[in-house]
Each structure stands twice: as structure tokens, then as C-alpha cells.
């Protein structure tokens, strides 16, 4: 156990130094705030432009739906990136992967440790984005005290699934060239489209809705929004189920996804070793 803890602590320290020590602390804090708030602003402006040209009375429920989804999506983008980029940056950038990989530690724990600082920063960013929305953009949020345990459990589950998916992507990126940005942009994009983050599943074609229902993040976003924006008029297509049922869906699909992710990682790792790609560099 102590080896795991030591690995985690060291990797977390390394991840934190890599993330933050390139600049002054105040600039790092500013950076950590500006990026997510600016990301939320893209959607705010899309909404404002649509309202300006088509629907002057506005649609606060649609806006809140989108805003809360987008705020929590910060977790998706940063946790996924924080996890899979460990392999790509250690391999292509710092070229230290071979030394870490052959050391007698759990590589999973190392990856999770390296991602820890990104998760910590993203908690801060999500909170800032939500507070900004409530204070300046009229987003309506409410979390009942009795819902707090459910909220915490679902958030923990959601983050676990994200870590598992990140590890799975890491396994895949063992085999591919340097695609940090393609992955960073594309994989979250997949969840952006199919998991009802910004718009309800009903907007998607039937096959798209089926894909969405197979991904645990869809249930995580749904339950989070139920707890934070109660009384929304937006038809989520999962409205027929109560919160515990959605949580059950989340648990079941998470377990399935977790197993699948570990399997894909293992396969990726196996083929990378077989092809001698563990420590390749592919810059272009």
C-alpha cells in the first residue's frame, strides 16, 4: 500500500510542477480561471446571438441547461486530457516514459497521480464558472441539502469513469503517433455530442440517442442537472426515470465502461510492447 501511496504522491507532485511551475502563481491561478470561463462564454455568446436574431424574449431554461452542462464538461475535458497526455508527453516530450515504465511501480497509479493536479484545478474551474454564471448571467442554481450525498456520489462516479476512459485512451495512444490535440479535442467532442451536455438527447437522431444512453457520462450529466437546476422545462428524454434509477444506470454503465477501459488499455500496452512502440517518438 505504501508503494502505491508513494507512487501517487510523487506522480501528483510531478504533475503539479509540470502544470504550474512554468509561471508565477498568480498567473497560473488567472490562467486556470480564464480558460474555463472563456469556454463557457462561447456558448453564452451563441445563445445571445440566437436570441438577438430569433427569439427576443430569451429561453432561460435552455440557457441554464446548457450552462450547467458546459460547466461540468470542464471535468471531462481536463480529466481526460490530464490522463492520456501523461503517456504522450512522457514519450514524445520529456522522453522519460521508458524509465518510468520499467520502474517497479503501478503504472495506473502513476497516471492517476499525474492527473491529480488537473482534477484539482478543474474542481476550482468548475466552481468559478458556476459562480460566474449565477452572479453575472442569471443562471438559476439550487442544491438542496438532502441532495448533497447523491450529488457527491454521482460526481465521484463521474470522475472515476473519466479516469477510466483516460487510461483507455492512454492505452490507445501507446500505439498511435503524437495526436495530443486531436485526442484532446476529439474525444471530449464525442461526449459533447452524444451525452446531452449542451442539448437534450432528443435533438440527436435515434442512433445518436442510443449511443448516448450507452455512455455513463450521459447519466452523470442528467443527474447533476436534476440536482442543480430543479424545475427546468427542457425535455431531457430521461425524464421518465427518477434520480435513484438514473444513479443505478450510472453505476451499471460505469462498471461496464471501467472494465472495457482497462481491457483496451491492456491490449494497447501489449501491442505497443510487441511492436516496440512504448518509447517511440513520432514528431513531425
Amino acid at each position: 500500500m505504501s508503494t502505491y501511496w508513494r507512487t501517487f504522491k510523487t506522480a501528483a507532485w510531478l504533475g503539479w510542477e509540470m502544470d504550474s511551475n512554468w509561471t508565477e502563481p498568480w498567473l497560473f491561478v488567472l490562467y486556470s480561471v480564464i480558460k474555463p470561463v472563456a469556454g463557457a462564454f462561447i456558448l453564452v455568446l451563441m445563445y445571445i446571438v440566437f436570441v438577438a436574431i430569433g427569439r427576443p424574449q430569451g429561453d432561460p431554461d435552455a440557457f441554464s441547461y446548457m450552462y450547467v452542462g458546459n460547466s461540468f464538461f470542464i471535468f471531462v475535458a481536463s480529466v481526460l486530457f490530464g490522463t492520456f497526455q501523461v503517456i504522450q508527453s512522457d514519450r514524445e516530450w520529456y522522453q522519460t516514459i521508458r524509465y518510468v515504465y520499467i520502474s517497479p511501480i503501478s503504472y495506473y497509479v502513476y497516471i492517476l497521480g499525474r492527473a491529480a493536479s488537473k482534477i484539482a484545478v478543474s474542481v476550482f474551474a468548475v466552481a468559478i464558472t458556476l459562480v460566474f454564471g449565477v452572479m453575472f448571467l442569471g443562471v438559476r442554481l439550487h442544491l438542496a441539502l438532502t441532495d448533497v450525498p447523491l450529488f457527491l456520489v454521482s460526481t465521484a462516479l463521474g470522475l472515476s469513469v473519466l479516469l477510466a476512459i483516460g487510461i483507455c485512451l492512454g492505452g490507445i495512444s501507446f500505439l498511435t503517433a503524437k495526436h495530443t490535440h486531436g485526442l484532446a479535442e476529439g474525444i471530449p467532442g464525442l461526449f459533447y455530442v452524444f451525452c446531452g451536455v449542451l442539448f437534450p438527447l432528443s435533438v440527436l437522431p435515434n442512433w445518436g440517442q442510443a449511443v448516448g444512453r450507452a455512455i455513463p457520462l450521459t447519466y452523470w450529466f442528467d443527474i447533476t442537472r436534476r440536482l442543480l437546476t430543479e424545475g427546468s422545462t427542457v425535455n431531457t428524454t430521461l425524464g421518465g426515470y427518477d434520480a435513484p434509477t438514473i444513479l443505478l444506470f450510472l453505476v451499471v454503465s460505469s462498471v461496464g465502461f471501467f472494465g472495457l477501459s482497462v481491457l483496451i488499455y491492456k491490449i494497447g500496452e501489449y501491442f505497443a510492447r510487441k511492436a516496440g512502440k512504448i518509447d517511440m517518438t513520432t514528431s513531425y
Partner: protein
Amino acid sequence: MSVATDRRTDLKYRVGLNLRAVVGRSYPRIVGANREPSWIFFEAFLPLLGIAAYVFIYQFFGLQATAAILGNPPMCGDHVCASVAEQNQYLAAVNANTNALIASVVLGGTMVAFWLNVLWSMASQLYWEKEIGNLQLYMMAPMNRMALLGGMAVGGMVMTSMRAVSTLVAGIFVFGVIFQVANPLLLLAVFFATLIALYGLGMMFASLYLLWGREAWNLSALMEEPIFFSSGFYFPLGGLFRIPGWGPAVAIAGSFIPASIGLDALRQLTLGSTAFGGSLWIFNVTTELEILVGMAVLFLILARYCLAYLETLAKREGKLTSRHQ
């Protein structure tokens, strides 16, 4: 040197040297990237999903607006519809605006591909080259440094065109966007002027980043989202002028990125200047083309001088070859 051959320094030699350097540096991008099959999936297909999300948002807004117009009571703007004719008129307007916004997203997505390429494969590229040990070999070679950046830009444009084209094709065939191009020559002129200005800006950033290590990487990351919203990649930038107070200020700041003016002109040329009631455009196309040409020249000149100055500074501080900063 007494015995060694005197080397040529005439103009013809220099032009030839720098053209070869451009071809040489663009080669790894064009050939190397496409040589890796996974590239097509990661760099061309996956980013389409992000674009799709923005398309669906407008469809969602459109459906919500349509539901309100068809609701009980039927709402036409802020009042109850007076007649079926008014209701139909509002429905048609919502449809037209939604489609035009989706088309704007598709065009924006095309330009996003180039912007991301400028940020990640131009601006912060020299940092990357330093890390893998190429920068010192480049800086020791006799070619003009602008030729090096030019090669990166040409390679980047060609490489990114695939993603841009796949976005356009998906827009037309998957999302049913209809473009009406009345003046293809002007469209091409605007497109290439935008690209040259954009990559000129990238060259300038590349030189500014020469001194930096991970700061460069993080600054590029920081420039993604704010520029997405201030440059109107996913909505017509003119919409910002409808927001009193900070809206115009953000739009003006965003206009310094050539993609914003370029996109405005491209949207006018492909959607028709009467789209969105003709009220969301910043300038007319000719003026925007002139601005783009001006920006292209300005950024290229600035890049040239920044690079020369910062190369000297980097050599003085010993940062041209120090890795893992």
C-alpha cells in the same frame, strides 16, 4: 579562407536557398503526417464531433423557439401570434436563422482547423523543435528564418486542409447546409488572404515564443477559448455588436485575429449578404479583403523583425538550445 571555395551570396542563390528550405520544412508535415494512418482519424474525423456539438446546439435552440411559436398560446417574439400568417412568418424566420447559424458554425469549424494549426503547429512549434533537438540545427543553417517558418506554414496549411475540407463536406452532406457562392474568385481571394494573414500571425507568435519554454505551450492553450468567442468562430461576430457595453469591445479585440474578419467575409460570400436580415456583418466584403491584405503584410513584416530580434536575444541568454525549460 584561402583554399575553401568562396560561397555564393547573390540574390539568385539566396532565393533558391530559401525556396529549397521552404520545401524542405514543409515536407515532413505533408508527407510525414499523412504517413501515419491514425492521423486521419485523430486530426480529421474526431474534431468534427466538436463542430457537430455546436450544430446541435443551434438545432436545440431552433427546436425550443419553434416549440414556443407552435405552443399554446403561440408566441411570436414577445407577443401572442396575431394570425397564422404571422406564425408562419416567425417559423420561417427561425428556420432560416437556424440554418444560417449552422452554416456559420461549419465555416467557423473550417477556420478553427487553421487557427488551431497556427496556434499549435506554428506558434509553439519552435519550442517543440527545441525539445527534440532540431532548433539548433535550423538556427545554424544559412537559410532565412522566415523560410523555415514559411515551410512550417505551407506544410501546416496543406495538412490542415484535409480537416477543413472534411468539415465542409460534413456540413454539406450531414447537416444539409446550403452555400450560395455568387463570386467564387472573390471567395478564393478572401480565403487565401485570410490564411496568409493567419499564418503571418502564427509566424509572429512563433518568434515571440522563441525565448519561452512551457510558457509558450500554456499561452497557446490560453488563447484557444477566448479567441473562439471573441473572433466569432461559432456565430457571426456582428452579433456581439448587439450586446450593449462590452459586446463591441470584445468584437473589436477579436477582430485583430485575421480569422474573424476573414470569416465574416466568407459568411457574406457563401450565405448571401442578406442572411440574418443583413444586420450582423461588420464591413462589406471588399473592405474586409483590404483589411486582410493589410494584416497579412503587417504580420509578415512584424514576424520578420521579431524573429531577428528575438533570435539574437535567445542567443545572448543561451535559450536557443537549452531544453526542457
